[in-house]
């Protein structure tokens, strides 16, 4: 008992020393190339480690668990100069650190226009009125008594990539493509709620409104509302996060993220769109000739290589290299993803792995043997409608550089001999 602390201290000192040693040797091993056997063996193997001897923390240390402390860098980040105030701002999903197709709830990018509203579920109401037989008010409890469905959808802000219209600008896939996330939603098909109120035949449009300080509103055509919209209260199995609209949000699958009204409190049925600020001043796409497109709802076919990318450089040297990325289309599923490593002269078809669901992210891989030479990486998605992801120059030729929204152009990453990656554009 008495000398237990001493032993522990001695052990810790020893392991700290061996840690330093291991660090040095590790460095040497890398310098000498891989696979060099060390006479003494890897101390991480030959010496007993603290975590192998001393007990770890028990259950309940974190009743709601958190990622490992070694993952502290995997966080949403913002670009402070983009907006005047964090209350009406945006941050970005760390795509370069993620794999698979599901975004963890705490990493889903945030965009709100009047801060995150704090609403107790018992105080929340959803009203349906306008051109209906019976205007209705639902509590959260009412909503949870309708039949539910589970659906996986991506949500992409129409301005994702909006900073890149005039040329490559932000050095990181998190910043160029991180206004997207993909989760499994649980909720009630909007159709059930509309049928409960009874939409009149003259009801052709729906206005969705949030309960936040921006009272966010968007007009949605009835066809879409009755097709696949969902009124969701869960994401990835748990309640929506506050910043994602707790307790209730609208899902408008495949369409621009701004329409997925958070803190959803009101649905008005009308016979014409409302021309709200977010569908006139914003979320309209100014073209080169001065005309502006409105009601550009669908998110186009798109893809990006998430690793390697500027924030995820190649650190292991030559040899096997996993190139991976995401592809998605607001029109349906992804049929194929092609990847080039020479800036678009030759393309290879990548392997899509995991579920292929409509209006959801798709994960692709291309496993190559890197010879250490420079790479110009691009990915190109093709959806089940046969739409092919265009180049940035094709988009500029068609629209000019002032559209802000709907930039789905092909992204290029330059990988240099050291594995350092940069956001570039190519001829």
């Amino acid at each position, binding site marked *: 008992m008495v000398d237990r602390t001493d032993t522990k201290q001695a052990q810790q000192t020893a392991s700290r020393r061996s840690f330093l040693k291991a660090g040095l040797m590790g460095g040497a091993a890398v310098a000498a190339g891989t696979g060099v056997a060390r006479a003494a063996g890897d101390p991480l193997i030959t010496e007993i480690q603290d975590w192998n001897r001393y007990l770890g923390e028990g259950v309940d240390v974190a009743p709601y668990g958190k990622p490992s402390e070694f993952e502290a860098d995997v966080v949403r980040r913002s670009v402070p100069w983009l907006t005047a105030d964090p*209350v009406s701002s945006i941050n970005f999903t760390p795509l370069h650190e993620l794999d698979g197709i599901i975004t963890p709830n705490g990493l889903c990018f945030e965009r709100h226009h009047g801060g995150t509203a704090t609403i107790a579920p018992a105080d929340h109401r959803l009203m349906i009125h306008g051109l209906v037989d019976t205007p*209705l008010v639902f509590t959260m409890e009412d909503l949870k008594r309708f039949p539910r469905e589970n659906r996986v959808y991506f949500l992409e802000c129409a301005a994702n990539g909006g900073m890149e219209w005039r040329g490559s600008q932000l050095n990181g896939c998190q910043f160029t493509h991180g206004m997207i996330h993909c989760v499994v939603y649980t909720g009630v098909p909007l159709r059930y709620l509309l049928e409960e109120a009874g939409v009149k035949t003259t009801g052709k449009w729906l206005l969705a409104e949030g309960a936040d300080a921006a009272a966010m509103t968007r007009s949605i055509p009835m066809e879409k509302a009755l097709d696949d919209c969902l009124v969701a209260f869960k994401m990835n199995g748990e309640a929506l996060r506050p910043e994602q609209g707790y307790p209730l949000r609208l899902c408008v699958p495949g369409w621009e993220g701004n329409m997925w009204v958070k803190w959803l409190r009101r649905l008005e049925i009308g016979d014409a769109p409302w021309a709200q600020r977010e569908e006139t001043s914003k979320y309209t796409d100014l073209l080169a000739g001065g005309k502006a497109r409105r009601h550009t709802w669908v998110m186009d076919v798109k893809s990006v290589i998430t690793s390697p990318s500027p924030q995820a450089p190649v650190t292991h040297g030559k040899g096997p290299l996993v190139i991976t990325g995401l592809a998605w289309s607001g029109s349906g599923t992804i049929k194929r993803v092609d990847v080039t490593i020479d800036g678009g002269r030759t393309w290879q078809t990548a392997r899509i792995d995991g579920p292929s669901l409509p209006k959801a992210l798709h994960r692709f891989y291309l496993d190559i043997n890197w010879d250490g030479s420079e790479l110009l990486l691009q990915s190109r998605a093709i959806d089940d409608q046969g739409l092919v992801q265009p180049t940035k120059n094709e988009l500029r030729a068609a629209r000019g550089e002032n559209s802000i929204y709907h930039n789905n152009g092909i992204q290029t990453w330059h990988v240099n001999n050291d594995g350092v990656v940069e956001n570039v554009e190519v001829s």
Partner: protein
Amino acid sequence: MLKFPKSAALAVLALTAFASPSLAEGDIDAGEKVFKKCRACHAVGDGAKHKVGPELNDIFGRTAGGAEGYKYSKAMIAAGEEGLVWDADSLTEYLTKPKAMIKGTKMAFAGLKKDDDIENILAYLKSFSTEQAAAAEPAPETASEAEPVETAAAAPDAEEPATEMAMAVEASQGAYGLGRKAMPDEIAAWDIDIRPDGTGLPDGKGTVAEGEPIYAESCAVCHGDFGEGAGRWPVLAGGQGTLLKERPVKTIGSYWPYLSTVFDYVRRAMPFGNARSLSDDDVYALTAYLMYLNDIVEDEEFELSKQNFTVMRLPNEANFIADDRLSEPHYAKGEEPCMSDCKPGPVQITARAQVIDVTPDGDGDESSGGGID
């Protein structure tokens, strides 16, 4: 089936208990929530900096207008020179009706209406003031937990019980029979949207001249005296003829298609941080003033009203078109994409992010980027 209503009822009880602590001394946690109303303009706590308004650390004991490095209104500086020092009484007065207490203060905030809110926010602000001697803080948790029942009873004007009593609940007639019929007053309270054809416009009117002082008081801090935008806050006026330029300035005058959107948006969301505080006449007057700032009307006596609203047109209305993305050549050609020998020679790099370097954590020039709007 039995379990859910029971736990829901418990949740309501617990929420009422936390949401409205009727503490004479104010509750810090509740005050933190009230502070959301201030957060757009004020920061408090470690490393708080001046924003639209001054930082509020050590506000208790501060001479009015006394925070270093912040540009106050003349009125606030004068109040400080006349000896106004912030304490519980003076803060209560100021936060109830800022403009009634200090005529000419540039704080664009209507005031807190509930006594509870004021008590709570004072407790919250006090927790960031070193001069705390006066009132020993009661432990807020114990106090609010102790009397949940009395709390509910002591607040007869609390919304929850009142509406519950008044509601003659009519069930839904739909297939599931879920939800209840919305009442006309409820619909009227929430249905504030306005369409380009004027549907939804409330009765009322206001002139350019009437809008000017409201704008100066409530809007100019962020949007600039002439709608030019202070710092990075949105620009509201000007920009005519810039839509073809490299950096178009999209404003009500240069870009927006409909005037109804101005009325609708200002009424629902402005002033930022104090939404729904303007009267309908105020919004007519502000809309008229924004037309004036955008050279859409020139007469200061011009009056906008429900009657003449839909006659008004914004200059850029005709320039909005339907979504025709699918007719763009790259989609329309519908070809199988090229797989090999797609480009003649080796590919050249034509642009690099590192040259511009505006990525956070880099130390590049901050303002060269485009926007997300």
